């Protein structure tokens, strides 16, 4: 194969696929996927159930063969260079899996002994460190069948951390975790990313992805709909301006004159939302509690937020707060994949 048809290796990408496709019989699970996961990023791989995320991850890791296209992981072609690539990759694929009759520790020892590059002399210490890192130190000697789903999930993450990795591929890492565990996993992923590890994390929990990812790729029905930085994706959507003011009618008038369509016209004054829990019971009182939030889509082409502020001030509107908010990722996600989380058939 000449270099002209293969993917040009991009040193800045930890994962790079070109035209990746997978067909099971007549079912096209993944088609024409050009994934680009930059080094050092936390890449959120989003998509409804059945959209091809796990199939893609299986191909990246050499578990299944691609029907078409090419894959480079950490600069090496997959699956041809799996022996050199995979030791640098930690993975949690489609849920954790263990020998139920072995203890948590023995399970990790077992999997670690399969890695030729994992030094035997440090095995015990590395296993214990990984168990401590996911908070399983006290349950290390329990048999895995006695673990709860959340504990298994933690053990699966510990397995991915047995060796220093350049890339972590985590398929639904917070599945089955309690809110506390979810927070811990998020913090863990962030601390790993701070150490320079690239993290590819698949999830259907949008809020979670929004909180921890720097990049996002959205899959639907086997295709990658969009990918880029979180800010890129947000920028694609409409922005909203939020004005916090005790002069809502005046503000609405200004916004209308600018060509915007303020919402909530005629609605009763509500306490300011940012400090709503602390707001006194009587919202009509003067002071910040008397401020009302006026919102409008910043839909007009070329209208800069600062223009809006200037116009408001010029009209003597008392501006107590001003905010430009992107559309929530959820809005974008639904825009892209359509309403309803139907499993792609």
């Amino acid at each position, binding site marked *: *194969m*000449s*270099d002209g048809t*293969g993917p040009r*290796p991009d040193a800045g990408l930890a994962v790079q696929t070109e035209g990746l496709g997978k067909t099971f019989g007549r079912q096209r699970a993944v088609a024409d996927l050009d994934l680009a996961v930059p080094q050092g990023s936390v890449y959120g791989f989003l998509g409804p159930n059945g959209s091809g995320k796990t199939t893609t991850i*299986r191909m990246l*890791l*050499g*578990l*299944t*063969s691609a029907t078409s296209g090419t894959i480079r992981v950490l600069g090496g*072609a997959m699956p*041809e*260079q*799996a*022996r*050199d690539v*995979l*030791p640098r*990759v930690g*993975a949690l*694929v*489609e*849920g*954790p*899996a*263990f*020998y*139920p*009759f*072995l203890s948590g520790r023995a399970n990790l*020892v*077992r*999997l*670690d*002994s*399969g*890695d*030729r*590059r*994992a030094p*035997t002399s440090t095995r015990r210490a590395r296993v214990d460190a990984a168990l401590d890192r996911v908070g399983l130190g006290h349950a290390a000697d329990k048999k895995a069948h006695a673990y709860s789903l959340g504990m298994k999930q933690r053990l699966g993450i510990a*397995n991915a951390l047995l060796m220093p990795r350049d890339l972590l591929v985590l398929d639904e890492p917070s599945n089955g975790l309690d809110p506390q565990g979810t927070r811990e996993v998020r913090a863990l992923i962030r601390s790993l990313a701070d150490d320079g590890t690239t993290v590819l994390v698949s999830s259907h929990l949008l809020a979670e992805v929004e909180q921890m990812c720097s990049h996002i790729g959205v899959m639907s029905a086997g295709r990658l709909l969009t990918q880029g930085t979180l800010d890129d994706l947000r920028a694609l959507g409409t922005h909203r301006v939020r004005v916090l003011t005790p002069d809502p009618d005046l503000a609405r008038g200004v916004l209308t004159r600018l060509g915007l369509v303020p919402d909530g016209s005629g609605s009763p004054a509500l306490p300011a939302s940012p400090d709503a829990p602390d707001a006194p019971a009587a919202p009509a009182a003067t002071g910040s509690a008397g401020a009302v939030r006026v919102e409008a889509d910043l839909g007009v082409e070329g209208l800069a937020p600062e223009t809006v502020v200037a116009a408001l001030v010029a009209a003597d509107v008392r501006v107590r707060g001003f905010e430009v908010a992107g559309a929530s990722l959820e809005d974008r996600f639904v825009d892209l994949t359509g309403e309803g989380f139907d499993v792609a058939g």
Partner: protein
Amino acid sequence: MSPAEPTGPDAAAASSSVPGAAAVPARRGSGLALLGSEVAVLFRRTRTIALLSALALIPVLLAVAVRVATDDDGSGGGPAFLGDITRNGLFVSLTALTVAIPLFLPLTVGVVAGDTIAGEASLGTLRYLLVTPVGRVRLLLVKYAGAALFCLAGTLVVVVVGAIAGAALFPVGPVTLLSGQTIGLGDYAGRMLLMALYVTISLLGLSAIGLFASTLTSVPVGAMAATVVLSTAAQIVDALPQLSFLDPWLFTHYWLGFADLLRDPISWSNFADNALLQAGYIAVFGALALGRFTTKDVLS
């Protein structure tokens, strides 16, 4: 893939489908670590211990039954050597092996060999082993080695427990061989070990069949059943005179041929024919297992 030329040893090992060549990689120490882990997991598993215990029960039950039933010195029907047990307890091992070979040993070997890959697949640990990464060829070799070790362990259990039970319940003395000579205990012990080796080798072909069946499914019970059924079917075919032309090709054909090791001088022809036949089965089904497993999409 043109840019992949620097990986000399890797490429050589990866492209080689000859089991022997891939078994000796550059870094041998950690290759053995996986084998050690496999053996530890296999033999510490409750199921394996139960299988070996069941095998150990065969000579024990046999010895006890003969001891209880033959107080009146009656030597009726039953397998060969059964009547000899009362005169010399050392024949318990031999009799137990004869009893275990047609069904019990293939049954336990079928369970272990059928579980090799399918068991990992059904637990989901297969994907984690492969991502670790354990190369597929290496995993198959280690799994087969584990199954072969189980064959040896199962056979030795029958022989050793048989010797102990025989010595405990019956008089023990010099053994008269089939060819008429009498040999001492030490010499006989050596012959028993040779027989254990013979039986172990006899089961290696079946293990290879089980390994291949195990790569076809992620339901271990299916692979186990297929393996056991094949061993029974082969014995039935072997027993049908109309199909006698098939006999030399059946992996079960030499299973009961170990009596030749009780002659002096030892007749090695069965031993050699059996070893060659089993090697053929290992080659064929090993190659099938390799071909299947190295190209398989692991979806479990």
